Every structure is written in structure tokens, then in C-alpha cells.
């Protein structure tokens, strides 16, 4: 059902947890649907994602996509992270069963949600300043 890479990322997921002093947090999904992903990031002033961590409630694919998606954007510029598509996540995992494609969508969306949060935080910081 799952590729070896999915199982590897389920068994030993990278970047589990919450980034301390995160300045970007995004959470998507609903428990009724069976998946919730929460991404927290530390983005520096140059727009580089210095750290990213996830917490995921969901199936094996949800955990694995969270793991590889965070790996794919870690150390990258936010502009690059914004371009991350769910297909890239799927490709990186060597494919996903049709019923699990939505997990990759969710992972991409969680990242976008965190980046939006960062933008919003920046706006607020400006307004306050």
C-alpha cells in the first residue's frame, strides 16, 4: 500500500514537535475528516525558514507527508516554500495511494497557512511599530 519512503517517514518522522518562539503557525484539517496538521516555524528577517516542526493527527500518510514537507522547506526562503505543491510531496515519497492524496494537499496547505500567519504577524508588528 505505502512505499518504503512513506513507511520510513512514518516510523522515523523528521521535525516532530513545536518550534519554540515560533513566528509562523498554521493548522489545517478537521478531526472529523481524520487529519489535523499543525506546522510551526521560525522564519528569520531574510525570509529563511530556520526551523520548522509539525504535529499531526492522522493516518500514516499524513505523518509521512508532514515529515517530508517540513524537510523540503527547511532552510529555504519563504518564496520557495510558497511554491511547494502537493505533487512535489507525493513525488518525494515515491507516490501515495489514491485515497491518501488529500494528505499531501493538507501538508502543502499547512505550510501555506503558517506562511500566511507569518505575513499577518509581520503586518501586525509593522502596525504596532
Amino acid at each position, binding site marked *: 500500500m*505505502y512505499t518504503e519512503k512513506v*513507511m520510513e517517514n*512514518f*516510523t522515523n*518522522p523528521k521535525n*516532530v514537535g513545536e518550534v519554540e518562539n515560533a513566528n509562523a503557525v498554521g*493548522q*489545517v*484539517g*478537521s*478531526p*472529523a*475528516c*481524520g*487529519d*489535523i*496538521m*499543525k506546522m510551526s516555524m521560525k522564519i528569520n528577517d531574510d525570509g529563511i525558514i530556520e526551523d520548522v516542526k509539525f*504535529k*499531526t*493527527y*492522522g*493516518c*500514516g500518510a*499524513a*505523518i509521512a507527508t508532514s515529515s517530508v514537507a517540513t524537510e523540503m522547506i527547511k532552510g529555504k526562503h519563504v518564496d520557495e516554500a510558497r511554491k511547494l505543491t502537493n505533487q512535489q510531496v507525493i513525488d518525494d515519497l515515491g507516490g501515495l495511494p489514491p*485515497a491518501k492524496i*488529500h494528505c499531501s*494537499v*493538507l501538508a502543502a*496547505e499547512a505550510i501555506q*497557512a503558517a506562511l500566511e500567519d507569518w505575513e499577518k504577524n509581520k503586518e501586525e508588528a509593522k502596525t504596532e511599530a
Partner: protein
Amino acid sequence: MKRIYLDNAATTPVDEEVVREMVPVFTENYGNPSSIYKEGRDAKKLVEENRAKVADALGAQPNEIFFTGSGTEADNWALKGAARRNKKRGSHIITSAVEHHAILHTAQQLEKEGFDVTYLPVDEYGKVSPEDLKKALRDDTILVSIMMANNEVGTIEPIKEMVEIVKEHNPRTLFHTDAVQAFGNIPVDVKDLGVDLLSVSGHKIYGPKGIGALYIKKGTPVENILQGGAQEKNRRPGTENTASIAGFGKAAEIAKEKLPEHTEHMQKLRDKLIKGVLETVPKSELTGHPEDRLPGNASFIFDYIEGEGILLSLDLAGIAGSSGSACTSGSLDPSHVLLALGLPAGRAHGSLRLTLGRDTTEEDIDYVIEQLGPIVKRLRAMSPLDEAHPIDAAVYEHGDHHHHH
């Protein structure tokens, strides 16, 4: 790695003795039972001997047992056959919210054909209330179908009591029970239950897959759902599946013979498993009825985590279990049974069903208890949910892209 198979409600390995009955049928007793020469007569004899064994295990007469290609076909036949045949007398059907999809989806098909179906609710333990049934009965109720034991949470329904209520209301209202999970695990006696129709399946009792049977009480008006040859006394066409019938007969015979021993063995280990899990895993809960449950069923809900992660982790540890029913575990929808028990969708996703079998050992149970705690702990550590962030408070955002259909 040693494997521990705890999904006997999904399917069972075929008993070696059953295989020994089947193998010679393939190459030696291979005749078509409808043929009049020796090979055909031998095959016919085999079919009838094994029909008698299945009948005996169910307390039925051999001429009340009709072989089908699966438990699903037996369920379809019972519902469609009884409904369509009796529609002149009425169009109301009663079933329950916790039935297997072979019943529920068939009932929905009958709704499309113009029948009116009432889905009885269940209590928090999965029990249908005979009082509710009584209230739901109408003058035009032609059929009631309530499962004998639930496949997900193992709850045993009060069939005998409900049959009495139905027959008191109207002796001509037919009663069907899906005994696919009950057969081989608890006593199933059609006369004692008083049912008109009862479904069973081979692969849940250490027999082969692809064979089932429908008990049709003598004189019960039921239409055929498949058309073709004159097999099964003109009621179920298709060349008889002789090898599987031989296997099913043997499996039924063993099931009957070993029932008390089997029940006791499983019940003891099941109770140990339930106790062990509830004690070692915080925030865990038993689903289904605490007493009136199948002897092999141990099913749970673990807060804050989702079932598939548990299954994959158990699998890596050599343990086979299921979450929701096997048939639905491929889908995203939470189990309709757990929802019917009143669990919110979010919690229902965190379900685990372990179903014991004849060969389950005490060491197996010890090992499972030992493994489960750390697995749940690891998954919870990865989850955004916890006591401080319970499911209901979780943000529902960007979630609209994956609706259920």
C-alpha cells in the same frame, strides 16, 4: 518476525482439517452435482452431506440451507428477496444503524426501489432497544433485519426477544438476522431464535472465503436474486461450489463441536487484553457492550490519535489489528458503527479492534499489551491534540477541500 493475527473478525485462516476436506474435491471429486453419472452423484452426495453439517450447526433442517457465494450475497438475498417478494403486503422495512454494509447498502438500494426503511438507533454500547423496535413496527412492516452480533464492537443483540415482539405484532412480518459474526463464536440456533432468515459466511469460521449460506425457514416467501440453472432447488443458480461447500461444512461441524472450548479460551484472553489495555494506556476506552459481546472482540478508542497510525505501528511490531471494519478502513469516513454509538467523528477515528481467534495465546496477549502503550504514547507525542487542546477545540480551517461524499 513472529506474527500475531488479531483480526479474526475480518477473516480467519482456514483450518488444516478443512483444507484436507477440500483438496481432494478439486482433483478427484470434481464432478458437477447436477450430472447423473458417478462423478456427478459423488459431488451431489458431498454437497448434501455438507449442507446437513451446516444445518446441524445452526439447528436447521438441511432443506432450509441454501449456499451462496458470500455472506454479502446471503444478506442481499435475504433483504431484496423478502422485500420484493412481499411488497404487495407492505413496503416498510426495519433495520439498525449498526448493520454491516451488506445490509445497510442493500437497504438503501431498496429505498431507491420504493421501500421505506427505518434505521433503529443503538445505545452507547451498540444495543438496539426492543422497545424502539416495538414502536417502529407498522401495519405495513414486512421485514425486520437486525444483526446477531456486531462486527466492529462485538455487541450481541437481543434477537430472540425482538423476534417475539415482531411475531406478536404480525406473524407474517419476516425476521432476518445477519449471523456472520455470531456463528462459531456464540450459540446460533434458528429454532431457538425463531428467525425466518439468517445469513452466515465461511471465512469467519475458519472455512474458505467466497462461500456463505442463507437459512430460509420452510415456507418463507423469498424471491431469487440471481437467475440461471436449477441448482439449490431452483433458488440459487450456478454450478455448486463443491470444494468450498465441503470446506464450509467441515468448518461448521468443527465450530459446533468446539464452541464451548473456543468461547471459554477466547473470553479469558479477551478479558485479560481489555483489562491490560485499559490499565496501561491512559485515555483509552472500551467500545461495545461490557458483557454482551463476542468472546473474541476487544475494541477501543484512544483519544488524540488516529486509528491507521496505530495499525501501522502494530503491524511493524508484528501485530495485525483493524480500525473500524476491514471493509471501510480504506475509506476516510469514520465507522458508521462508532458514530451510531454516539462517538463524535473525531474520536471515532481513534479506534482499534482486536479480534482473537482459536490460536491466540496468552503470550500473544502479553506482547500486545506491552507494545500498545508505547505506540500510543509515540503517536500522541506527534499529535497536535491533547488534554489542553481537545478535539472539539481544534481549529477547523482549510478543511473544506476534502468533503465526504
